[in-house]
């Protein structure tokens, strides 16, 4: 049993090392955004798409992505007097499209986030019901990584408990952390 759990802790920890590190670093990024410098880049271009090829916003989004070799999913659609204003998103990239139905002209602005913002975007992008395949892949990774974190925590407790010389101080830290957390959760929930 001990050997199995020790190996589980080791293999889970090593496989999800980069995932846990990513979550730790991006949590620090959320807490201290000013510590991390980065600049969004923007690229602007235009296309001509005949209205017959874009009978609706979804078709327009698909056409823009095809023409410009972009990927992502349609996020928001706004009807404008001239046509549509669309936002296509994927983690780290925003594609804004302004389409004029009369002229068939589509102004496309692609904005790309800097490195740290992409990692933070990954941090807060859970879920598996997106229309863009890679977003769902990442949602599965988050679910697996979070389950691994649970597994690492529980196996870690077991492994610590097997070290007799560490039980006293370890118990103080574990119970102290649990008591501290529980009191605060109670205070925050009931205020």
């Amino acid at each position, binding site marked *: 049993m001990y050997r199995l759990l020790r190996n589980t802790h080791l293999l889970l920890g*090593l496989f999800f090392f980069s995932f846990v590190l990513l979550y730790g670093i991006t*949590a*620090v990024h*959320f807490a201290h955004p000013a510590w991390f410098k980065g600049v969004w880049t923007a690229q602007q271009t235009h296309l001509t798409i005949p209205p017959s090829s874009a009978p609706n916003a979804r078709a327009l989004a698909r056409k823009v992505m095809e023409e410009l070799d972009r990927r992502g999913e349609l996020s928001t659609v706004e009807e404008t007097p001239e046509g549509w204003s669309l936002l296509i998103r994927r983690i780290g990239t925003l594609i804004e499209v302004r389409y004029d139905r009369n002229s068939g002209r589509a102004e496309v602005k692609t904005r790309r986030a800097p490195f740290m913002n*992409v990692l933070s975007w990954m941090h807060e992008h859970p879920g598996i019901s997106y229309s863009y395949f890679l977003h769902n892949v990442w949602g599965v*990774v*988050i679910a697996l990584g979070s389950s691994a974190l649970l597994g690492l925590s529980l196996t870690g407790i077991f492994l610590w408990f097997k070290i007799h010389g560490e039980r006293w101080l370890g118990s103080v830290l574990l119970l102290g952390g*649990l008591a501290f957390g529980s009191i605060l959760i109670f205070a925050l929930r009931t*205020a």
Partner: protein
Amino acid sequence: MTKWIKKVHMYTGLLNFTMLLIFAAVGISSTFLPEPKQRPRPQAQVRYVEFASPGNLSDRELADHLHKTLNLPLTRPSPNGGIRRNTQNELEVDFFTPAKRYLATILEKESRVRIEEIRFDTWQFASYLHELTPSKAAPHWPTRLWGFYVELSAWSLITMALSGVYLWASTSRRRTRWAKISLVAGIGGLILFYKLIR
């Protein structure tokens, strides 16, 4: 050296056990639950409070004055995005705590405020808890302390990840084939995903 790093790894995990459970629970639940906006909205509790609106204040100033007057527990002044005029031109202001949202509407003609108190479900509460860093916390002791605990846990994740790899690399188990494969596959997978998404 290894002995001390092992202690750091272990103690950090024990001290942050509560938060690790919350991080894991939020990660798992946010994968499968619909977004809060798409979940059924809980029943709001409505009450009215006398409030005389002082004249010559901007919406921002009025919202801040309202915040001071109401003194709702565990709230901080509303961000700009939480201040707006409704279709009757009444000022609506959102105040948040980790556990609930207060929607305050100033009814100037009636000299009072309508306060809707909307309590979050358990998962939304946990989600708020996990992202409550000191910079986002209201200036009250439970939120401040919790904010520090979240930040400590963020640093602890980094510490545990790095010390864990060090511990593996400093023992004979570094030669274990499956361990090497796990580490390389995990890092490689993340780099590959980053490349694909860019």
